[in-house]
């Protein structure tokens, strides 16, 4: 399988984590693609942390509403049954455990479920936005990312070295190479992408896969 096919596998795989009615917050970028990959018959409710539930697909050209944008600032839509609220209620929803799952990218994630995805000191400091609240508040935290950095460096580690987004909050790591569950014993390899061998994924991972 080529890179593109493996990334597509990743997204399909994450999309299978949900059941109908789940309230889900998808991070900017790759995670957002999960919404289009849901298995048939599964309907989830997407939360947009800037202030609404019922996030729908992008609007058709000419149908953009300047007041309906997602948390990435892109034009969006609100599905029937959706609701709008202020940022205080939005984060009450997030922090209060009312979001069933969040899917985020990561710079690093480790075998204790620690996550680093918001800054590289002295270089990239965009800010944590809503990520720290999401990772602490969502019932289930799913990291979805390429297994290694662009230069091949492992991103799944024994211990994160970058500043953390939160400690001990990640439940599942889905990459283009496989699916790892965070357990008290460490990372349990649940599944490998088609064509990936155990030797390959372990070699690309700094933590021991169980």
């Amino acid at each position, binding site marked *: 399988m080529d890179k593109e096919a493996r990334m597509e596998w990743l997204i399909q795989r994450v999309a299978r984590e949900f059941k109908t009615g789940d309230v889900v917050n998808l991070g900017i970028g790759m995670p957002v693609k999960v919404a289009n990959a849901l298995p048939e018959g599964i309907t989830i409710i997407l939360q947009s942390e800037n202030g609404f539930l019922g996030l729908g697909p992008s609007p058709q050209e000419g149908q953009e509403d300047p007041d309906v944008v997602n948390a990435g600032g892109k034009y969006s839509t609100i599905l029937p049954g959706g609701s709008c609220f202020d940022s205080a209620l939005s984060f009450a929803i997030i922090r209060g455990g009312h979001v069933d799952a969040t899917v985020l990218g990561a710079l690093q994630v480790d075998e204790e479920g620690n996550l680093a995805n918001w800054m590289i000191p002295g270089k990239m400091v*965009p*800010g944590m936005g809503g990520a720290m609240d999401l990772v602490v508040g969502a019932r289930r935290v799913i990291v979805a990312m390429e297994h290694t950095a662009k230069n091949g460096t492992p991103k799944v580690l024994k211990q994160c070295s970058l*500043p953390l987004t939160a400690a001990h909050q990640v439940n599942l790591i889905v990459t283009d190479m496989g699916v790892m569950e965070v357990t008290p014993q460490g990372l349990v390899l649940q599944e490998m992408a088609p064509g990936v061998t155990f030797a390959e994924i372990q070699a690309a991972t700094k933590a021991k896969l169980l």
Partner: protein
Amino acid sequence: MVEQIPLEAAVNKIEDGMTVMVGGFIGSGAPDQILELLAQRGIKGLTLIANDTGILGDALSQLIVNRCFRKVIASHIGTNPETGKQMLAGELEVQLVPQGTLVEQIRSAGAGLGGFLTPTGVATIVEEGKQKISIDHKEYLLELPLSADVALLRAYKADPAGNLVYRRAARNFNPVMATAAKTVIAQVEKIVPLGEIDPDEVMTPGIFVHYLVQARPKGVAQHG
């Protein structure tokens, strides 16, 4: 008591060195016309409290480009690279705060609370310098209230009593900031007669609002 004033008069309420809250989320629901005129003036030394610093090219980002701020308190500055550049060069003080903590700090000030305990930021650099309190064996950070001299808001409609109604995702930080500043100025798309906004429809009660600024119509009508 709420007063309807021209854009210029609203901008004149803001003085060098003040702490200013600005509603909006990457430009959505931001009081763009007030910010544009403010950026044109030579205002200096402001402290900004906002979710972000806008997206390069928009009204709020122009205030960063024009170096109107001494300090920025925000949850995200990634959509305006100029902010990060000034920060890394040591020319602008930037305090990054988790979004849920930021809005709750503002709410806390508006609600007369002394602070709140949040699990967000525990075991991260966000906890530096903060008191940690354990409740039922779970650790929390004690976060303190955040208030401002002026809050600059944007609403969809208002009535002469100052009641505000926001539209869709443009609500975001606006209603919370309305509660936490000494002077509250709202740029509104339209002002309707008293009694036309149903009491159940009001999102910010008029008692929080001091000045209304009717927005100039855009080239293209935005809200029908």
